[in-house]
């Protein structure tokens, strides 16, 4: 062969080798994309960012362990500014441009409801990590699944707890006039007579209330066994403290729900009070994974996680199981069916994960007693009650429109 031919041949050989090497290098698999539209700015910033913190833990773990079906799991986190139209725009964008497999993310029920319409219309599996409005799984829902028990159910669970602890108890209600509290109280008021409880005071505060002393005095006058306190935001602390100021005992106070910052807010004064939750450092049933998650989250964020972070931690694992059960990560319909058929447990607490025909999960609640609060750093709680129930044990879709 003359030199020219040799050079050509070697050039071709080199090129071929390069071409072979390139695809091998580009062989890292396509990620599975899931749209995560959550509240990174706006009034619900705190919940959205807490959620993303929990989400990141799980995604890192899953991807380190090899991903799902050999592909990395990627959540495209988008801000919805706690606004429905932004959430819709983001969902559209994720659906059409990124062609995500599924949607997830909102912690605000308003926003979740806006995305719900889009998901059902476009037939996109939509797994809602934290949002308690019952309408998210109203009869006929096909593509939306809700992990957190619905708010009316929380009221039901509270009534069952009091029934078990003190049958025939006299109960006072003090709550803010927000949609979430109305739903919880609707559930409670429905179940209370059925649990043989007497509601001796029922006080609702308008939005923007600052002071509850007078109402606390009214409640004190009614001599209840228990006072259920559910204020919006910081007002919850105000009601609690003013009740305690007037001589109500912490053991008499029940909060329908409590996340870490709320427990810190109630503080040492509320030792002995009860709060409802879905995940907590003081659960009896924490699994080793759960304890590990708590330890690592605490180290990274200087506070223990509660149920918001937990649900967002559990969400990627639910997707992982469902995608693996479906056998493919490219078919929305198959994913939807796999989620619907899922029968598994939460990684962190062993609580069952099963969805009914409308996408509502079989519901459950823990009631914890505050044992001690260590400033803003940590707290101890003791599990006092656990209950599971079917979402439609009360006529939830009629109680809360």
């Amino acid at each position, binding site marked *: 062969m003359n030199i020219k031919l040799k050079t050509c041949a070697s050039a071709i050989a080199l090129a071929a080798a390069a071409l072979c090497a390139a695809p091998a290098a580009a062989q890292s698999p396509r990620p599975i994309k899931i749209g995560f539209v959550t509240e990174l700015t706006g009034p619900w910033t705190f919940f959205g960012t807490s959620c993303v913190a929990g989400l990141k833990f799980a995604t890192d773990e899953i991807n380190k362990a090899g991903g799902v079906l050999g592909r990395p799991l990627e959540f495209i986190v988008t801000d919805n500014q706690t606004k429905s139209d932004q959430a819709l*725009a983001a969902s559209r964008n994720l659906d059409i441009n990124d062609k995500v497999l599924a949607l997830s993310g909102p912690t605000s029920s308003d926003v979740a409801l*806006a995305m719900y*319409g889009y998901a059902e219309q476009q037939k996109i599996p939509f797994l809602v990590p934290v949002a308690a409005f019952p309408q998210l799984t109203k009869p006929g829902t096909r593509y939306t699944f809700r992990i957190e028990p619905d708010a009316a159910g929380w009221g039901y669970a509270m009534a069952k707890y009091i029934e078990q602890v003190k049958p025939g108890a006299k109960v006072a209600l003090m709550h803010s006039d927000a949609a979430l509290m109305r739903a919880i109280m609707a559930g409670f008021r429905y179940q209370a007579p059925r649990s043989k409880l007497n509601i001796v005071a029922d006080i609702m505060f308008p939005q923007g209330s600052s002071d509850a002393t007078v109402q606390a005095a009214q409640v004190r006058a009614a001599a209840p066994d228990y006072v259920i306190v559910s204020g919006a935001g910081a007002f919850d602390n105000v009601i609690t403290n003013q009740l305690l100021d007037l001589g109500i005992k912490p053991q008499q106070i029940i909060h329908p729900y409590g996340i870490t910052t709320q427990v810190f807010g109630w503080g040492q004064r509320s030792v002995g009070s009860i709060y409802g939750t879905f995940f907590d450092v003081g659960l009896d049933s924490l699994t080793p994974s759960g304890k590990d998650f708590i330890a690592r989250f605490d180290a990274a964020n200087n506070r223990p996680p509660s149920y918001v972070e937990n649900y967002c931690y559990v969400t990627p694992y639910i997707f992982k199981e469902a995608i693996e059960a479906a056998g493919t990560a490219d078919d929305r319909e198959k994913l939807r069916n796999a989620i619907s058929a899922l029968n598994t447990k939460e990684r962190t607490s062993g609580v069952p994960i099963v969805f009914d025909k409308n996408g509502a999960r079989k519901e459950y609640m823990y009631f914890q007693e505050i044992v001690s609060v260590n400033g803003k750093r940590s707290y101890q709680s003791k599990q006092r009650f656990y209950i599971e129930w079917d979402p439609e044990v009360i006529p939830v879709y009629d109680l809360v429109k």
Partner: protein
Amino acid sequence: MKPASDRALWIFAAAALALPIIADGNKFLAFVLGMTYISLLWATGMNLMYGFVGLMPLMFAGVAGIAGYAVVHLTRELGWSFWLAMPVATVMAALAGVALGLPSLRLKGFYFTLCSLVIQTVLTLAFIFFPTYTNGDTGINQIAPPDWFGGQLKGLGLELMIALFTVVGILICAWIVRSPLGQRFVAIREDDILAEAIGIRVVRCKIIAFFIVSLYAGVGGCFYSVYIGFISPRAFDVLVSMNIWLFVAFGGRGTIAGPIIGTAILAPIPFLLQDLQAFKDILSGVLIIVVTLLMPGGIYGAWLARRRRTQKAMTDSARVQESRV
């Protein structure tokens, strides 16, 4: 201020109608375009009141909300066609707008703005606390697209329809501005006591203005409902009114081109610049302050002023040249 030339208007109309077709390839951009058009329709209405009559109606979004909720109620509960429900809902909202505006007719400037702010707050609260019609805080979702000859009007078809209404709205606004009615508006804006003195029935003009402006709000509200598919009290609250006002003030109030420029620049921002969203409030606030302090005429106003100065400068130097000869 020179009225917009006919040619400019027709060029704009053609472009506005062509844009959705061009953008159709990218569904997300098409969506942003649709939202921009609805905002533009609203801005045109706001401009009529703020730019030409001189009053800042912060209850604009509430009126849009009345129409939005009404059209959903009429199509869902009563089964009407969207094309029947929309005019009815819009007129209802316009009448409500006039009724709500009536008491504040005698107010001017800051008091009018404050009064409209209070009315807007009342409307938002009404949306929240009368859930029979509005489903309260939860909102109404899964609103169906408008019906269209047996099928549904969505996607490109709906966007073209919105574009059409917006263009027609702007053309109507341009026509009003040039008409005697429009000149009366400007007279009221400049000095309403003087206007009354020279025979303009100020109260009657204001009522007419309220009605027309509320029509714009209402049509936008109807289309918003079916385009987004979800409405809630927050979709029609005071921040929306203020945003629309900002589009007008930023672009240049009292002109036809001003709101178009302002809306075209500002409306897509929340949807497009995702990274900037955290700073959206700050940006919006800074813009409001900058516009009020430095650019009372908006972008278009500043550009017009610059052009006038350059023209004047050129004319003067030309005169000097001539005088030399």
